[in-house]
């Protein structure tokens, strides 16, 4: 009976995800959609989020025979309601599709964590609830700070100092120094520095709007990146570097600078490869994981076994062996989803992430205020690079760099910073009205 339900749920879950993805794609290409049609589609997506979460939870409840899961489902639905209400209280959200996508990502994360490690899932839900509260406070602060777009050195300062502190005092995990433990809670400062970093670049550009802005942004960015490379946190270093390059491109429209930056980054990459043995081993683990399966290639090999063995439909929730992948709850959660929900769902998930990037960039495109245009662009860029690095690493498209999958992976810091990003993007119009003095108006 249990196996019939899990098997059947593969099909229902797949159907929900397919409809959701189809709406995502449709909304992407249909610019001139009437508001009422748009509203109907978004409502369908919102319903799917709820039904998807309930369907998954019921399957897990039956197969694990643990009532905690129903309790968690209840809290998760409350949380989702809370997020939507909070967004509407802060401002009229710009994109309902963005909210729907984020909530679906969270549902994927919650379900997969409950399936993999119930304790972790309970903690993660706690962190997410706390994240919502902290986010509301953060938004309140941003709203009320005067001249948000002018505190260049403050943003750069807290970013670089936090990264420096963690690189000196932090714990070494999986070869990189990326986290503190404060009162038993592991905090990854680089997640928050992503935010201050975007604010820093946007502020530098908007304050000067000439070569000085470029110079300050460049020097500040390089300092961030150097500290990250020093901490061996290559994933974050790549995210910061990419965000810097793309934001400069948006602001200065300069193709030559853009090309030059890419050339320099490539040379830097080759140098890093030659200089650092740990990059070489990662490269080998990527190019031929089976040759080092006992050691560095173990994780990626297990990830590919998980993705490749069950095929398109997946094993059904709780029927696979995703726990064979080391730290599956953090960096490799995508492989667990592919294994149990199937690769059709996995492909849909990539499409949803792509659509989410588009939505963020579209919001940026429509933002009148230049500072928030750059901030939301930065959020979109970070979201895109992080997703590509994570999923690409899991499926062996690129070498694994150890970054989390936004809104899905386990990790409180990542969840909090992403939640703040969501709120800033959705409420950017309102925030812009409240607290920036258009630099060009002076």
């Amino acid at each position: 009976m249990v196996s019939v339900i899990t098997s059947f749920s593969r099909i229902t879950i797949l159907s929900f995800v397919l409809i959701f993805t189809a709406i995502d794609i449709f909304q992407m290409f249909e610019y001139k959609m009437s508001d009422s049609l748009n509203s109907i589609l978004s409502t369908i997506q919102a319903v799917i989020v709820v039904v998807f979460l309930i369907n998954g939870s019921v399957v897990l409840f039956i197969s694990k025979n643990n009532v905690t899961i129903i309790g968690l489902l209840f809290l998760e639905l409350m949380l989702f309601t809370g997020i939507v209400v909070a967004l509407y209280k802060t401002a009229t959200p710009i994109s309902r599709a963005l909210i729907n996508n984020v909530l679906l990502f969270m549902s994927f994360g919650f379900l997969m964590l409950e399936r993999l490690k119930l304790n972790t899932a309970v903690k993660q839900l706690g962190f997410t609830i706390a994240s919502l509260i902290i986010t509301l406070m953060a938004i309140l602060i941003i709203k009320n700070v005067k001249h948000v777009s002018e505190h260049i050195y403050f943003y750069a300062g807290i970013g670089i100092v936090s990264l420096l502190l963690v690189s000196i005092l932090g714990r070494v995990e999986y070869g990189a120094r990326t986290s503190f433990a404060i009162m038993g809670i592991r905090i990854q400062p680089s997640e928050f520095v992503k935010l201050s970093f975007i604010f820093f670049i946007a502020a530098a550009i908007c304050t000067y709007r000439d070569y000085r802005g470029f110079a300050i942004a460049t020097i500040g960015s390089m300092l961030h990146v150097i500290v990250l490379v020093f901490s061996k946190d290559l994933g974050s270093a790549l995210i910061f570097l990419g965000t810097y390059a793309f934001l400069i491109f948006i602001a200065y429209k300069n193709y030559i600078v853009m090309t030059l930056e890419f050339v320099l980054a490539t040379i830097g990459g080759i140098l890093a490869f030659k200089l650092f043995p740990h990059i070489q081993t990662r490269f080998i683990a990527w190019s031929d994981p089976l040759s080092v399966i006992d050691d560095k290639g173990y994780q990626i090999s297990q990830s590919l076994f998980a993705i490749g063995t069950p095929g398109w439909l997946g094993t059904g929730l709780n029927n696979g062996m995703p726990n064979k992948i080391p730290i599956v709850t953090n960096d490799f959660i995508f492989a667990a989803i592919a294994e149990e929900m199937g690769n059709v769902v996995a492909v849909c998930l990539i499409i949803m992430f792509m659509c989410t990037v588009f939505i963020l960039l579209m919001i940026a495109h429509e933002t009148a205020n230049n500072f928030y245009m750059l901030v939301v662009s930065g959020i979109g860029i970070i979201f895109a690079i992080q997703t590509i690095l994570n999923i690409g690493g899991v499926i062996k498209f690129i070498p694994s760099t150890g970054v989390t999958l936004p809104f899905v992976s386990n990790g409180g810091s990542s969840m909090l910073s992403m939640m703040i990003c969501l709120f800033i993007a959705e409420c950017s119009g309102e925030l812009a009205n409240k607290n920036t003095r258009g630099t060009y108006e002076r």
Partner: protein
Amino acid sequence: MKDKSKHKIIRKEIYIIAAFFALIFIAMIGYLINFVNKRSKEFIYNEYNSRFSVFADDVTRGNIYASDGTVIASTSKNEERKEYRVYPDGSLFCHAVGYVGKGMAGLEADYSFDLLKSNIPLEEQINNSLTGQKSPGDNLYTTLNYNVQKAAYDGLGSYDGAVIAIEPDTGKIIAMVSKPDYDPNNIAEEWEELTDESNKKSSLVNRATLGAYPPGSTFKIITSVAYLRFNGGSEEYSFNCRGSYKIGNYTIHCSGHKSHGKEDLKKAFSNSCNSAFANIGTTIDKKQFRETADSFLFNQELPTMLKSTRKSVFKVDQSSSDQQAGQTAIGQGETSVSPLHMCMIVSAIANNGTLMKPYLADRIESTKGEVISKTTPSAYGQLLSTDEVAKLQDYMSSVVSEGTAKKVDFGDLEVYGKTGTAEYTTNKNLTHSWFVGYSTDASGKKLAVAVIMESAGSGSKFAAPLAADVLKAYYE
């Protein structure tokens, strides 16, 4: 705030970035689809992947068939609805096809993944999983010919050894037998005995692919080519055999101490004259000897589509003594080969010098008869020139018409071969019996075969008649 829009710094660049990311996302999707569809098949078949055991819950392991559709292996259920594997012909196919039970071996292991995949239509799969029924796994069709396999198996009788037959123009393995054997139906019951350290029989080992035998006189095929290459392609050679040949203090004898008298290369080959070939071994350049052996795939992985084979060993090089070279030239010394390797060499000769990679698995079909994957014959390359092929064919033909295999009844078949009698201990009365060769019928259909019968005696008396039976079974 409308007035601000006039001051927009930029906009178009955001689209460029969106397009850039879209490209990467799409490439990533393509990569994932390609991995799941194609590349994963090879990748996931790994001992570190513990997921296979779970498959059996949803899919009934598919059947394995001989090329004519005879069932070699199938799945049955006992009264408690527990599945088990049935091999209707017992040990007939045991080494080629392997077993499931105590782990897996042979094709059962190599194609386990395919046998446990069901390629019936998706709606039927969904229907089956909803009703709690297992879907039927795909079936594997081998290249093995039931009748030829049976002739080889029966012919080998109670001797230890191996028989392997290959279709030269495709590389299809038509028969593959190794003895001592075991009954895969009872693998669990017999496991203790089969794997007992004190049991020297090693019945689980497939001697056809993994055996390490001294090639004996069958190696004279390679020595002949080495001489032709040393002699600039000319077969000009003359030797007066007095029944033995001295290299320093070491004497090599002809079989039965027979004096063959005056011989050219062809005559020495068909007589399998040890003295003449020992003389050749000491004459030719040792480096070139080594290069010739290496060109015949010694000291390297054999190019096959099989999962496990054994490297053959050839040790002579510039630093070797004349005695070593002389011994090696007649297939003694430290040289060792597998029957598969000898059969590949002969099948290259039969196929005008081109070696086709041997394979056992012809195709995977769904239970609906849809072909899921099919092995396409693939050439490894040219092992020897057409000129060398022509000369060897002449020599190998004379072995059957007037040489050591003259008395063997090959029926109407045109046969090219070489017998071998290989010493494997210091006791010269204990010898392995070899025959390697190929046949063609009037239509030009060819089959290459290699036979080794351990401790049987001379090649012409034991291995050659068995090879004749195997070849004849193929054309019936």
